[in-house]
C-alpha cells in the first residue's frame, strides 16, 4: 500500500447528502425486489389471464408482454419510480464530487506520478468515441462515460464509481464488494479450469476498473489490462488501483480496434459491456477478440442472458432498460443468436461456452464449487445479479 490518497475513498458526503444516497439505495431495492414482485403478481394474476382470454394463448415474447403491460397503473408507477431512482442515483453523488473535484484530480495526478503499484495509464484523445455514447447519456448518467469538464478530469469516473455504489447499495448480494462480476468469473475459472493460467488478461469496456481488479487478485502473476473509451473513468480507475496496490494497465481504446498485436492475450473478458454496443460493432469486437486472443486462449464475457434463454415476462422486465435507460442496443443484443453470432465471427461452435456463474461473494462455497465443476445453478435472477450469465469461446 502507498501513501497516495485513494480517489475511490476520498469523497465525503455531508450528513444530508449521505442520507440522500442511502434513501436512493433503499428505494432501488424496494423497486427492484419488492415492487417488481408486486408487478409480476399483477401480470400473472390479471394481465396474462386477460391476454389469454383475448388471444387464446400466452404472450409469445417480451414485446407482447410489454404491450399488455404498458398502460397498467402498476407498470406506469413502477417505471416512474425506477426511472427517477436512476436519475437520483447520480444526483445523490454529484454535489460532494463537485466540491472535492480539484482534490480528486490532484490525487489522480499524484498516483500517476508516483505509480507505486507499477500499473500504467495510456490516454488517446483521438480515440473514436461511438455516437451512442456522445449522443445519449447511458444509464441516464449526466455526462456519460467520456465528458471532460476540466484538465486531467476525473469527475465522470468519480460519478460512476460512487454512483454505482449507491446504485447497488441496497441489494443484499452486492453490498459485500465492488467487482462482483469479475471476482465470480475469476474464481470460477480457477476452479473449473485449474490448468488455465492466463499470463495476459484484457477487460474490455472496463469503465473505472472495478471489474478489472479482481483478475489481478485471483491471478497475481498475470499482466492485467483494461480498455475503455472514457478518459475520466480510466484516470480514476488507474488512480484507485495504484492507491490500492493493484498494478493494472489502463488504455483509452475502442474495443472494435484495440491496436494490440495478434495472439496477444490468454484471456479476454468484459462485464455488462456488449449490451451498450450496436450489433454491427458487437461482431467487430468478436472478430477483434479472435485476432488478439492467443491460440488456446479463452474469451468469456458477462452479459444479460439472450432472450432465447429467458421467458417472455423476464424479457419484458430486462428490456425495460432498452426503452428507458438510454441503452438503445440492449434489446437487439439480447435478441442475437449467440452461438451463431460467435460462429459468424470465427469462433468454432464446439469451442464455445455459455455458463451461469453464481455471484461468488454471496454464494455458499460448496454451491459455487459444484457449479464450477460441472453442475448448473438453479439461480436465474440475472436482473438483480444473483447469477452472472457468461458466454464466449476458446480459441
Amino acid at each position, binding site marked *: 500500500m502507498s501513501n497516495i490518497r485513494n480517489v475511490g475513498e476520498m469523497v465525503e458526503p455531508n*450528513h*444530508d447528502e449521505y*442520507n*440522500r444516497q*442511502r*434513501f*436512493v439505495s433503499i*428505494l432501488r431495492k424496494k423497486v427492484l425486489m419488492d415492487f417488481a414482485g408486486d408487478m409480476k403478481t399483477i401480470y400473472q394474476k390479471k394481465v396474462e389471464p386477460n391476454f389469454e382470454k383475448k388471444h387464446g394463448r400466452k404472450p409469445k415474447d417480451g414485446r407482447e408482454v410489454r404491450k399488455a403491460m404498458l398502460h397498467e397503473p402498476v*407498470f*406506469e*408507477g413502477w*417505471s*416512474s*419510480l425506477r*426511472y*427517477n*431512482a436512476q*436519475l*437520483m442515483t*447520480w*444526483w445523490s453523488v*454529484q454535489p460532494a*464530487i*463537485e466540491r472535492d*473535484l*480539484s482534490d480528486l*484530480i*490532484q490525487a489522480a495526478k499524484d498516483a500517476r506520478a508516483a505509480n507505486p503499484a507499477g500499473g500504467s495509464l495510456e490516454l488517446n484523445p483521438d480515440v473514436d468515441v461511438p455516437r451512442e455514447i456522445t*449522443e*445519449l*447519456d447511458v444509464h*441516464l*448518467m*449526466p*455526462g*456519460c462515460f467520456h465528458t471532460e*469538464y*476540466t*484538465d*486531467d*478530469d476525473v*469527475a465522470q469516473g468519480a*460519478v460512476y464509481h460512487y454512483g454505482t455504489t449507491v446504485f447497488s447499495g441496497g441489494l443484499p448480494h452486492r453490498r459485500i464488494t465492488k467487482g462482483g462480476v469479475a471476482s465470480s468469473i475469476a474464481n470460477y475459472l480457477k476452479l473449473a479450469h485449474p490448468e488455465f493460467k492466463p499470463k495476459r488478461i484484457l477487460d474490455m469496456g472496463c469503465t473505472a476498473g472495478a471489474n478489472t481488479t479482481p483478475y489481478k487478485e485471483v491471478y497475481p502473476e498475470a499482466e492485467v489490462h483494461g480498455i475503455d473509451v472514457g478518459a475520466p473513468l480510466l484516470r480514476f480507475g488507474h488512480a484507485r488501483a495504484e492507491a490500492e496496490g493493484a498494478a493494472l494497465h489502463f488504455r483509452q481504446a475502442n474495443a472494435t480496434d484495440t491496436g494490440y498485436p495478434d495472439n496477444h492475450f490468454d484471456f479476454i473478458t468484459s462485464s455488462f459491456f456488449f449490451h451498450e454496443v450496436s450489433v454491427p460493432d458487437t461482431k467487430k469486437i468478436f472478430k477483434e477478440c479472435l485476432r488478439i486472443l492467443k491460440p488456446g486462449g479463452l474469451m468469456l464475457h458477462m452479459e444479460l442472458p439472450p432472450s432465447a434463454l429467458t421467458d417472455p415476462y423476464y424479457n419484458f422486465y430486462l428490456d425495460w432498460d432498452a*426503452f*428507458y435507460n*438510454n441503452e438503445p442496443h440492449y434489446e437487439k443484443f439480447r435478441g442475437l443468436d449467440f452461438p451463431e453470432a460467435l460462429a459468424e465471427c470465427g469462433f468454432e461452435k464446439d469451442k464455445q461456452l455459455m455458463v451461469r456463474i453464481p455471484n461468488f461473494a454471496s454464494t455458499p462455497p460448496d454451491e459455487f464449487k459444484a457449479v464450477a465443476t460441472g453442475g448448473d445453478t438453479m439461480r436465474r435472477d440475472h436482473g438483480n445479479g444473483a447469477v452472472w450469465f457468461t458466454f464466449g469461446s476458446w480459441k
Partner: protein
Amino acid sequence: MSDKTVNLPLRAKGKRATFYKDPAVDQLFAIVTMLTQELSVAFDRIETVERMLDKSGVISRADIEAYKPGEQEEGERTQRRDEYIGRVFNILHQEAASLRDS
C-alpha cells in the same frame, strides 16, 4: 488548470421518458419522489439530533417517545397541521375558491 469550479450537469442527454398519457403526471411523480427523499433525509437529521442529545445526556430518546403535549400545545399543533394540509393541497381548493369569489 483544475482549480476552476465545475458544475456537473443534472440533465441526462436523450429524450426524457414518460410513462403516463399526460406528461404532467410524470413531472408530478418526479416531484413526489424527490419530496419523499427529502422527507427521509429530514427524518435522518432529526434522528441524528435525537441520538446526539441522548448520548450527551441532554434529552433521552425515551423521554421524546413518552412526550405528551399539553392541551394548549396540542391546540397549537392542530392549528399548524390544519394550515399545513391546506397549503399542500391548495390546488384542490382553488377552483371552488375562484367560483366562490366570482
